[in-house]
C-alpha cells in the first residue's frame, strides 16, 4: 500500500467530524470520494496533509508510520513533500505569475535551482496547454485556467499522491470539462489521486474506486458501477437520488 489511514478521528469543539476513518490507497489508484455537504470530506483531506491536526489516527505513507495526532515538524514537511493538493478555490499565489506559482514549490520546497525549477514549471504549464500564459497573474486568468495551473503546481512536485478537493465546483459549467480533461490525463499517466467530487461522470469514467462518505464515516465503497448502480446502503441511495434531481 502507498498510503494507509487507520482510525482517523477529528473533532471541532464537540462536533465529531471524522469518526474513525480507515482507508488504504494503492499506488496508481484513483479514488473518488462523494458525499453530502458537511460530511467531513474536506476535513479528511486536510488532516492527511496536516493542514489540520487529527485527534487520533495513524498514517503510513511509503512504509513510514506517523501518529496523526502528534506529528513532528519533520514528518509534516516530509509528508507534504510526498503529497500535493488542489484546492476548490485554486488558491494560486496572487502575487506570483503562472510560472512562478508552479516554480515556487520546486525552489523553496524542494531546493531546486531557479533555472531547473523554471524548466520544469514551463513543461508542467505546457502539459495543461497554458504555456502562453506563463507571465499572467491569477487575476488575468479564468477560473478554469487558474485551476489547471493549480493542477500543474501540484503535479510538478512529482508527488506520490495528489489530493483534490472539489476541483471543479467553483467553476462555471463550461469550464469544468477542461479541468476534468487534465485530471483524466493525469490519471492515465498513473498518478495516484484522491478526488473529492460531485462529478459523477468523472468518477465513473476515471475512478478505480468510489467511496461514499457521510457523517464522518465511509458508508460504502466499490467500483463506480457498484456504488452508482447498485448502492447497498439506504443512505447512499438517498444521496444518489438527491443528486440525480440536481443534474
Amino acid at each position, binding site marked *: 500500500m502507498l498510503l494507509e489511514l487507520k482510525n482517523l478521528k477529528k473533532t471541532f469543539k464537540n462536533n465529531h467530524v471524522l469518526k474513525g476513518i480507515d482507508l488504504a490507497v494503492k499506488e496508481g489508484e484513483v479514488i473518488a470520494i462523494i458525499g453530502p455537504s458537511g460530511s467531513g470530506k474536506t476535513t479528511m483531506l486536510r488532516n492527511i*496533509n496536516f*493542514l489540520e491536526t487529527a485527534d487520533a489516527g495513524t498514517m503510513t505513507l511509503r512504509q513510514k508510520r506517523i501518529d496523526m495526532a502528534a506529528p513532528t515538524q519533520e514528518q509534516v*514537511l516530509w509528508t*507534504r*513533500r510526498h*503529497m*500535493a*493538493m488542489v*484546492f476548490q*478555490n485554486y*488558491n*494560486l*499565489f*496572487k*502575487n*506570483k505569475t503562472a510560472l512562478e506559482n508552479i516554480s*515556487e*514549490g520546486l525552489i*523553496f*520546497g*524542494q531546493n531546486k535551482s531557479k533555472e531547473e525549477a523554471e524548466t520544469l514549471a514551463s513543461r508542467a504549464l505546457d502539459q495543461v496547454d497554458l504555456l502562453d500564459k506563463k507571465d*499572467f*497573474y*491569477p*487575476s*488575468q486568468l479564468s477560473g478554469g485556467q487558474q485551476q489547471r495551473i493549480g493542477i500543474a*503546481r*501540484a503535479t510538478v*512536485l512529482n508527488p506520490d499522491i495528489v489530493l483534490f478537493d472539489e476541483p471543479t465546483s467553483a467553476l462555471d459549467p463550461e469550464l469544468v470539462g477542461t479541468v476534468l480533461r487534465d485530471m483524466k490525463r493525469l490519471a492515465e499517466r498513473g498518478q495516484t489521486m484522491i478526488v473529492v467530487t460531485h462529478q459523477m461522470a468523472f468518477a465513473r469514467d476515471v475512478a478505480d474506486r468510489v467511496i461514499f462518505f457521510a457523517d464522518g464515516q465511509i458508508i460504502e465503497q466499490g467500483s463506480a458501477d457498484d456504488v452508482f448502480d447498485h448502492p447497498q446502503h439506504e443512505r447512499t441511495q438517498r444521496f444518489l437520488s438527491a443528486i440525480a434531481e440536481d443534474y
Partner: protein
Amino acid sequence: MRLTKIMTTLLSGLPTTLTLLIFSFIFASVIGVCLAWLSLRRNPVAKGLARGYLGLVRGTPPLLMLLLAYYGLPKLFLLVGIDINDWAKLLFGIAGLSIGWSAYLSEAFRSAYLSVDPGQYEAALVVGMDASHAFWRILMPQTLLIALPNVENLLIGLVKATSLVYVIGIMDMYNTATDLSNQNQGVYQLEIFVVLAFIYWLVVLAIEWGFRQIRKDYQYVTV
C-alpha cells in the same frame, strides 16, 4: 515683496520638512512592523505590551507627542544614564513623529496581515514551503499591497503633521513661513500662506504619483 522672494525663503525650509518626513516615516514603519508583529503573537505579554503602547500613543495628540518627546525623552534617557540633552532639535522632532505614526502604521500593517486570504498560506505549505518562506514570499508581499492605501494616507497625513514641529522650535517650512510673515508685520501674510500651501500640495502630489506607480506595477495582483 516679490513672489520669488517668498518662494525661495519658504523653500529654504523644505529640506528640513522633507528630512522630518522621510526619517519619521522610516522609523515609524520599522517600529510599526515590530508592533504589528508583537500584537499578532499569541503570547499575552507581547500582545499586552503592543496594545498598551498603541492605546497610549493613539490617545496622544501629535502636538503633545512632540512636546513630550522634546522635554520627556532627555529625562527618560537620563534615568538609564544617557545624556541626550544636546541632541539636535530635529532628532526630537523625528522621534515625536515616529512614535506617533508608528501606532497608526502598525494598525495598518496588522489589519492588512489579517485580511490576507488564509488559503494563500495553506497553498504555500502544501507545496512544501516552510513557515518562514511562506511568510516572506507570499504573506508579506500581499500584506504590503493590502496596506498600501492606508500607508499612503498616513504618509500624506505625516506631511501635514511635520508642520507641528514649530512647537519645539524647528525651522521647517511652516515655521519659516510664519517667521517671514512676522518679519513683515503680516503684510504679505496671505501671499506667504498661499505659497506655503502650494508647496505642501506639490509634496503631496509627488507622493500620490509615487504610490500610483506602485499600484500600476502591481495592477494585476488583486489581493
